[in-house]
């Protein structure tokens, strides 16, 4: 198979930054995942990124992920062998060798976790993922829309427990795995959605890991050249600025293993005199300007430090930060009826319909 790009430990710096931008406030701070991936690459060697097109139709592909509340992930670090254990146990269950590793979620910590498994196994990693962003629930992947079952799935925790799930739907996988994750202490690592190369070619959101690397590089270069980092990122993503302002309040609740809440902003400069509200459930899902909803999931809403362009997670939001909110278009698969049913605002309990911020993509 042709390697698109060989990823060394230092390359994870850019990928983690890009992952945080696609994380849209959630998906967990990639810092911990980055360190784990770097340790794995230093120990086992570099990771080979390949295009999904390289896969044989009958190849076996398995995504890996970290699941749980972002706060927990920055505080209770993994034991270390959970991911590879989950991967190997699933391989045993399936009774055949896995040919490639896939990223479940290119936003947040999970932009980096697949590198841990790819480095440790020496298997190639596909340049793409199942979301093109981050989402809080595990059925919220393009794989679901292509009829891929999340199970058999193996879930491992830091204490050495592992759990195999066989479920009737991906929604049930989410419910049961979530309950297990909360019991496991709020975070768990998993291997799931085993699929063929043929299905992967239909479902995978392409190029998202290299997009992460590009976003990280864009930020770095904009800073080095004294450009405007927020503008540079916006240009790379074809994003628009929703708001520029200061955080005045963050109301957080941890409900059923999720960090839910609302952040309130007051405008500065071009947005002086305006107010802005962001609702989040791990990720930023709905934005309202002066009380009027302006952008919702599945379009992406991300927060960047107004000056440095550094992405800011919902978790690290605090009083006084001056930030810019960007909106950019989701993968077209999410704009279908099935996509909106999975990840539209109504699914998250918001009384709003999805109106594509950028118009329907054809």
């Amino acid at each position, binding site marked *: 198979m042709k390697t698109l790009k060989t990823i060394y430990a230092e390359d994870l710096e850019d990928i983690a930054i890009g992952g945080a931008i696609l994380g849209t406030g959630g998906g967990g701070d990639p810092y911990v995942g980055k*360190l784990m991936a770097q340790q794995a690459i230093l120990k086992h060697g570099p990771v080979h990124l390949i295009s999904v097109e390289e896969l044989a139709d009958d190849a076996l592909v398995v995504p890996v992920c970290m699941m749980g509340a972002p706060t927990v992930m*920055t505080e209770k670090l993994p034991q270390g062998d959970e991911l590879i254990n989950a991967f190997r146990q699933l391989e045993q269950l399936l009774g055949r060798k896995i040919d490639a590793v896939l990223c479940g979620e290119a936003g947040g910590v999970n932009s980096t976790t697949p590198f841990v498994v790819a480095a440790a196994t020496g298997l190639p990693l596909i340049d793409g993922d199942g979301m093109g962003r981050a989402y809080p629930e595990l059925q919220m992947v393009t794989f679901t829309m292509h009829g891929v079952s999340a199970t058999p799935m193996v879930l491992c925790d830091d204490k050495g427990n592992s759990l195999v799930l066989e479920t009737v739907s991906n929604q049930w996988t989410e419910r049961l795995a979530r309950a297990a994750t909360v019991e496991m*202490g709020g975070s768990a690592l998993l291997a799931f959605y085993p699929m063929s190369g043929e299905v992967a070619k239909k479902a995978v959101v392409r190029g998202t890991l290299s997009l992460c690397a590009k976003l990280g590089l864009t930020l770095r270069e904009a800073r080095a050249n004294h450009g405007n980092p927020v503008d540079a990122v916006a240009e790379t993503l074809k994003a628009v600025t929703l708001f520029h302002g200061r955080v005045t309040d963050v109301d957080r609740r941890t409900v059923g293993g999720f960090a839910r809440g609302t952040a309130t902003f007051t405008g500065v400069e071009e947005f002086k005199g305006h107010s802005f509200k962001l609702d989040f459930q791990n990720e930023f899902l709905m934005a309202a300007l002066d009380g009027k909803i302006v952008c919702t999931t599945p379009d992406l809403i991300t927060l960047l430090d107004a000056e440095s362009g550094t992405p800011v997670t919902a978790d690290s939001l605090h009083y006084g930060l*001056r930030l810019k909110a960007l909106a950019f278009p989701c993968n077209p698969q999410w704009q279908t009826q099935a996509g909106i049913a999975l990840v539209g605002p109504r699914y998250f309990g918001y009384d709003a319909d999805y109106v594509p911020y950028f118009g329907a993509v054809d």
Partner: protein
Amino acid sequence: MLRIGIDVGGTNTDAVVMEGTKVIAGVKSATTDDVMSGVVNALRDVLAASGIAASAIDFVMIGTTHFTNAVVQRRNLAQTAAVRLGLPATASLPPMVDWPEDLKQAIGNHAYLAHGGNEFDGRVISPLDEEELKSIAADIKAKGIRSVAITSVFSPVSSDFEKKAGEILAAEIPGVHVTLSSDIGRIGLLERENAAIMNACLRDLSAHVMNAFRNAISEAGIKGKFFLTQNDGTLMDAAFAEKFPVLTFASGPTNSMRGAAFLSGVKDAIVVDIGGTTSDVGSLQKGFPRQATVAVEVGGVRTNFRMPDVFSIGLGGGSLVVDGVDGVKVGPVSVGYRIKSEALIFGGSTLTTTDTAVARGLAELGDKSKVAGLSPDLLARTGAKIIAMLEDCVERSRLSPEPLPVIVVGGGSILVDGDIAGLEVIKPNHYGVANAVGAAIAQVSGEIDRVYALAEIGRENALEDAKARAIDAAVQAGAARETIEIVDVEDVPLAYLPGNATRVRVKAVGELHAQ
């Protein structure tokens, strides 16, 4: 109210005497290796210059970069044991995993993983293993280590394990200094642990330095209380500062920016503080330093302190000037406090930026005849290089294209003449001692940290109550009520307690009451 502000930097020890909001006198003297004699000299000189009796001084406020410098330069750091409670969790990334190798080696790279830790909901990950901790203690003791940092998973939610482990280690290792991460940081294991380890490795030095301060002040005949300034520009008393030297890490830039705002009367500006070895550039919004949004690194180590967003470059009054094939190079190497013997104008043999400034007529200092032979071409190129370096930093710190003034402070301010990046440059009176002024005008704070049952009183009421209590605490600590502002509000849900229990932390700060 008479107060003295002192800034102990790597190169200079500056002091000012202030009466209310008026600067009566300000002096600069060299920092000494023992710290104490430099402070003694500064106190003697500033009291003499002010004509005020030592016995009349009410308070002494000290800001110091001594602890930051110790970490950055990897000097005077104690061998330190990092004990983490959390096994089997957290083993993937051991303590100091993200540290620069040289710093890790400087404190011995003694990392211990032990059982303990809590889940997010307060459940126990694994019980504390007393035998395990005793054997770790025996190892620490055998290695002759006397500084320990203990970090338990989710200790901001429940600090019991850290306290218990601290007691066990203290009982096993006579004379040990224990730093508990829950006393220092917030959620975020690696960052909190990093801060705790850095604090622990500075404990020997802080005992030494605080003693030096205490002796210097009493030798000067001052009876008033003394304080240290911390990261957010507020004061902590000497006993507290000795235990938590890490809380002084960003006090240098905070003091210089607040001092610059105070002296110039300008509230929105870029502040350039040019010292002997480095220049710090930050931005001032409404009189306060702009805070960094993300994790701030100190000496290459990631922390989650709230610190001013400051950019530093290796340009100062002692920076070496070297003319080579690639043009003139300024810094980052500096003669530092040895400028008084090594610079050309002081009879030395090293060409420094101060020499070029004197040769260009920007300052009257030392023996000008020693630099008469420098070529006008070299001087012009050096001047242009210095301005280019500063422009670069100023551009990075600008928040908008709006033309803000640039306030230049610090002993190295003599290097600057004219505009920077087309922006007006303000050099306020007493610019050389802005840091000491910043220390003298440091604010007092009141902090509250309480658990509320939100189901009973609601979040709004809980926050209002917490804010009112923080303001009262600030008044209690000496703040003038009308000057108090809430600077930090944080609520952490404690999901394991009934009634939507939430830990609320609020910090209020205000100016020290004039009486």
